[in-house]
């Protein structure tokens, strides 16, 4: 008897073929989706790194500066008040002399005048010099070697961002100045090295992008995160323990639950407006303060922490509670001695992810005055860290991206790299904690 077609395990029926084909197609879609995602990631990361890595290097010019006594301390008595009377503008001739001396010493022929030669240096040079003289008045009259920042166009020239064609109409630098740069590079006076000040320094004004750094705004972010952690964690955990373990199930708790979920989806700018209205206009907290930023971000992070804490409390099996209650523990003892420790890794993970989210948030900070030329004073104590005006990392990046000089653009990308390093570290920490401590039942 001929076997009925299609019943063999070895021979596929049309229907099975179709089903298998559908499965193969679905797998292909999935792989394509992942490939697209990965491609985007690769494009993003390569763009960020190719544009931003330059910010970690900076061009420096090494000069021997003669600290002339007749310019810096006319009375010759090293009185600090007298020395302070000489402003950074008074230091300009000294720097000009140093550049001229260096150029003559090297025997470089240039049609430039002293002022244009000194134009290769950053405007930050005079500030560096003045700071040094005030800190070391004894050095006046001696010749000291300094490593000054080069101005942003020179830096761009060495990094390939600025070319001889592109400066045709640029009044900040001339072709003759670039000739001098080439000569000084050949003589090892100008060199490009790693720039720690980009990571640790303060923001700089539009006239000197080469001096701008992320350091102070990093501190601003740090203080905000401190506020968020100190407020959101205890409030969030207390709220979720109550809702999960103690609260009766009725319409009121239902409403609260729905609202918490809704709050998690509220756009962050809304919290910014709320912060402006409540913390600044009503409570009269200072504007631009990391404390206010922290409070606003606390509001934003709370729902995230509550939701993740409740999820991890729920994941603890009821048998643990029952066992604790069964041997005579009170409800609170059962929660704090048994349930909470078991849920802790989940809570911690949720908190870290909430913090990472808050760290990268810019929108609410726009409204409470944390964007602008703000991150220029490093805080000197914990109180001033919380209360005196500061910016935050993402706000600093936004600010740099807005500025006119293309050199700030590079720094904005560099800032993104620093921010990403922080975010990746925090997320990795969250993953490690989860892997290390999470228990499954």
């Amino acid at each position, binding site marked *: 008897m001929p076997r009925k077609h299609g019943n063999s395990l070895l021979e596929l029926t049309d229907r099975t073929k179709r089903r298998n084909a559908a499965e193969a197609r679905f797998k292909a879609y999935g792989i394509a989706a992942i490939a697209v995602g990965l491609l985007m990631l690769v494009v993003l990361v390569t763009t960020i790194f190719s544009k931003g890595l330059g910010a970690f290097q900076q061009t420096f010019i090494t000069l021997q500066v003669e600290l002339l006594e007749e310019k810096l301390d006319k009375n010759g008595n090293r009185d600090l008040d007298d020395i302070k009377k000489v402003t950074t503008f008074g230091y300009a001739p000294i720097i000009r002399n140093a550049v001229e001396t260096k150029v003559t010493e090297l025997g470089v022929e240039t049609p430039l005048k002293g002022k244009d030669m000194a134009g290769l240096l950053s405007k930050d040079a005079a500030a560096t010099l003045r700071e040094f003289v005030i800190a070391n008045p004894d050095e006046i009259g001696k010749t000291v070697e300094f490593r000054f920042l080069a101005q942003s166009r020179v830096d761009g020239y060495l990094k390939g961002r600025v070319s001889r064609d592109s400066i045709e109409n640029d009044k900040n630098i001339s072709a003759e100045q670039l000739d001098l740069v080439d000569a000084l590079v050949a003589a090892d006076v100008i060199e490009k090295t790693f720039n720690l000040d980009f990571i640790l320094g303060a923001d700089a004004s539009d006239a000197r992008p080469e001096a701008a750094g992320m350091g102070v705004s990093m501190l601003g972010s740090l203080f905000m995160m401190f506020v968020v952690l100190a407020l959101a964690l205890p409030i969030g955990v207390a709220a979720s323990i109550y809702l999960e373990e103690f609260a009766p199930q009725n319409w009121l708790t239902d409403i609260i639950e729905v609202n918490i979920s809704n709050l998690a989806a509220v756009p962050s700018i809304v919290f910014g407006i709320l912060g402006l209205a409540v913390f600044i206009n009503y409570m009269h907290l200072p504007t631009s303060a990391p404390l206010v930023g922290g409070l606003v971000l606390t509001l934003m992070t709370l729902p995230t922490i509550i939701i993740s804490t409740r999820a991890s409390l729920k994941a603890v099996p009821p048998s643990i509670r029952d066992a604790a209650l069964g041997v005579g523990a009170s409800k609170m003892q059962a929660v704090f001695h048994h349930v909470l420790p078991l849920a802790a890794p989940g809570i911690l993970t949720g908190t870290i992810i909430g913090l990472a989210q808050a760290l990268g948030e810019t929108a609410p900070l726009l409204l409470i005055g944390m964007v602008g030329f703000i991150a220029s004073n490093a805080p000197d104590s914990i109180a001033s860290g919380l*209360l005196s005006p500061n910016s935050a990392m993402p706000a600093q990046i936004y600010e740099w991206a807005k500025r006119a000089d293309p050199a700030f653009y590079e720094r904005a990308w560099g800032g993104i790299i620093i921010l990403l390093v922080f975010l990746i570290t925090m997320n990795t920490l969250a993953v490690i904690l989860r892997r290390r401590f999470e228990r499954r039942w």
Partner: protein
Amino acid sequence: MSFVKLTASTLAIAAVSATAAAARDQVQVAGSSTVLPYASIVAEAFGENFDFPTPVVESGGSSAGLKRFCEGVGENTIDVANASRAIKEKEIKACAEAGVTDIIEVRIGYDGIVFASDINGNGFEFTPTDWFLALSDKVSVDSKLVDNPNKTWADVNGDFPAQAIQAFIPGTKHGTREVFEEKVILAGCEETGAFELFKEANGGDEKAAEKACIALRTDGVSVDIDGDYTETLARIESNKDGIGVFGLAFYENNTDKLQVATMSGIVPSTESIATGEYPVSRPLFFYVKKAHIGVIPGLKEYAEFFVSDEVAGPDGPLSEYGLVADPELAKTQEAVASEATMGGNS
């Protein structure tokens, strides 16, 4: 663990309540994004040269800055408002209502507004008439007002190439927009004779005619940019036909990407603006709350330092960055030194 949390939250609450007592020791400035670069240059140099902390400079626009300025007197309000236009009567009134009566007006210099396009595109030599014909909602054809029919720059002016009209102009919240409307569009409106027609149509009302003049077409040819000049630049980079409105300082920092158009035959530069030849420029100001002088340390010193010859003079860092120095700077310095308020001046 709960004790630690308790301590942490107590500390945080204590910090919150302590703020009221903490005194502010740095000058706070907010306002125009056009003035921001100049103010930050001054703030930085001020922090370096004086024993006061570096002032804090926020942006947000002239109107927003003046609004915050007029909120009242006290440590929680800003000390200085930057503005790319003069303070309005309305704002002075709002200030007075909130108790801010003594305002010192300081003019720091002039800023040019330039028209620039992609460096590799066509160059232009504009007149205000060209801009009016390109962007106005209604133009006069044979002494009649009709909807703007111009599609390319060649339609506007026979000397121009047939490049589609695409303008990126500052949005209405910018002080720059006002200058653009007044010095370019309105001037062009008057030159083409459309102003008279608008006046007729409005029964001789000049105010209404002016308003009709500066009404721009809404068919996508003219795009309002509410962000900064960096956004305008990005738009031009992606649309090579685009022509954008920039501040002189911004253009001078981006000469590798932009070429500047002349206006009425004059190339914009700090020199041509200082002499008044280049027509599209405006004064920049900052306003100081007199009540804060002596309360906020360094406020008067900041204002004096800002207008000193070393800073705002023709060879100072501000002028190097693109500000056109004020020929009457000495008068301003005197006014700041004597703390002459606006009421006292007029």
